[in-house]
């Protein structure tokens, strides 16, 4: 079992990050190297400055707010919480002191961030069961939501255990040690990470996260990079 845990926690993480970074970079280069469209693709009336409106469209999703306010609330919660958790993870690396000015708990919101994220993901999943979203959806849409839900659930569970029912065996310091080892290419998995009562939760969390990272460059999640340039096209 320890071997399997180790494979998931070390080699697979490296592979996942390699696929994620290389895949994303190669795909983006290929997309951006393609010739530009010869004409404008803008929608009128235009508003100046265009780049500011493009940022507004990308990060505040005004069209969704107007046409599907409920979905908009969940989308905003989802993306904000996702961002907080990404920072919350980067902050676990000792080397990134700039993120550590704000305490770790803030990014996790005493477990609420993970909870909100799980609820938002369930909402996205269940709305796909309803027509016409059901007919529009392809398996990718479900896989991604289920995958993210599992990642968030198992990840949050570790945090919930600590903040809600005083589980203390596996904590921030252990994660820091493990992640620093990975970062400096001297992987050293602390005994706590491998053998604590909650190791299983961590391993499952990392496993699904690895799968997600490897799927990322080939999925619709590439919208994280393309949403802004596309919105710029619409603004002209």
């Amino acid at each position: 079992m320890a071997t399997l845990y180790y494979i998931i926690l070390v080699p697979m993480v490296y592979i996942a990050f390699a696929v994620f970074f290389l895949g994303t970079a190669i795909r983006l280069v290929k997309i951006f190297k393609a010739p530009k469209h010869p004409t404008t693709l803008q929608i009128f009336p235009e508003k100046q400055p265009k780049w500011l409106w493009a940022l507004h469209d990308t990060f505040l999703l005004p069209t969704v707010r107007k046409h599907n306010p409920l979905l908009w609330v969940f989308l905003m919660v989802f993306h904000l919480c996702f961002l907080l958790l990404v920072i919350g993870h980067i902050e676990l690396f000792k080397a990134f002191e700039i993120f550590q000015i704000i305490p770790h708990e803030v990014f996790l919101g005493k477990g609420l961030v993970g909870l909100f994220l799980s609820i938002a993901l369930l909402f996205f999943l269940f709305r796909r069961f309803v027509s016409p979203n059901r007919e529009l959806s392809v398996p990718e849409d479900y896989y991604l939501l289920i995958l993210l839900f599992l990642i968030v659930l198992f990840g949050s569970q570790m945090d919930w255990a600590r903040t809600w029912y005083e589980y203390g065996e596996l904590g921030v310091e252990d994660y820091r040690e493990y992640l620093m080892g990975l970062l400096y290419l001297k992987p050293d998995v602390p005994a706590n990470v491998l053998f604590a009562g909650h190791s299983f939760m961590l391993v499952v969390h990392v496993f699904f996260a690895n799968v997600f990272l490897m799927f990322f460059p080939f999925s619709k999640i590439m919208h994280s990079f393309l949403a802004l340039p596309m919105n710029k096209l619409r603004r002209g």
Partner: protein
Amino acid sequence: MDQKSRDELLQLFQGKLNQAMKFYLETCSRCGVCTKACHVHESMPHVKYIAAYRAEIVRRIYKKYFKAQGKLWSSVGESKDLSEMAVEELYEAAYSCTGCRRCMVYCPFGIDTQMIMSIAKLLLIGTNAEPETLTMLADMSIEKGKSIDIFKEGFLTGVKNLEAEVVKKWKIEAGETVIPIDVEGADLLYVALAGAHSIIPAAAVFNAAGENWTLSFFEAVNFGAFVGDPTRTKLILDRIVNEAKRLKVKEVCICECGTAFRVMKQLSGKQPFAVSSVTEVHARYIREGRIKLDKARLEGAITYHDPCQIARNGGVMDDPRYILQHLTDDYREMAPDPRYNWCCGGGGGLVALGEETLDFRMKSAKVKADQVQATGANVLATACENCHTQLDNLNEHYNLGVEVKFLTSMVADALVRH
């Protein structure tokens, strides 16, 4: 479909994959926000008429042949073989889409469904499955560009016959030409449609404004754009560009034709002349005091239908309203935000296909008919030939009891001497 024809089609597909197209094909998250955007879907709620679904029909082929995802794990994105069945689906998607781009206003990313449909249209041309009428019309336009001398005589006689009608609307000074043609050094080249209604009122207004203008030999409409053929579109466009350069005009003014205006304005590239729609030119004349209009000539409430290619996609929104302020005191706004104006249901070549598409056009534009009716206006003005024909058909089909009119002809009828 055999391998060779499929490869040829994929070549065509590949040619369309520029940066913007790749953005559009990579990104849809199938969130479904565009569900309410399409007039076809609003009138006939069927999933196949949702913008995201139309796009997905093209996207599935893209995934299969141009994306690792489709090659390695085909089922995850439901990628699809390019087969005869797929071509049929492409036809249905492309020719039930009018290219109005209303869905672009709903999409959180701004995906351009019209552009994605241009792949479908090109693949249809590649399999000879496109509506033949459109290709035929496009080829006739191109032929005319090649052998102008054959058409010249007939055209000049035809125009001559219109002069009396123009003079009825606006009497000119002795010695002036009623409809000038082929005038080198004119300020403005007016590109009309093959039809008296597109020439007579415009000519009267130009003469009233004292414009130094000349009429183009060619008709503005671009059937190449309707059928989605970039080569033909360019050839048809170039006839006018070349004529404008030869005559050294400062401005090319496109008649009331949405496609022609957008193609000329956005596709002609950087040219020594400016491009404007006849609506913009008329608004300018009023603003500069070059023409004066009499509100008493028109009775009843007037509403205005924004042609998609001129308003949402071409940016001409304030000028028609400015003109209408000078034509009536009872103007009824149809779409408070012109970005959301419903398409008439006749774009993308559907009107040009005539009877063949009539049933679909009437059913799919029910929301438009309702929108017109809600204004309670008696006169329905518009500034696009396609829209005019379609709105006329809707008027008859749904008994709207309105009079569908061109904005230019309303301006010409209201002209008064200073």
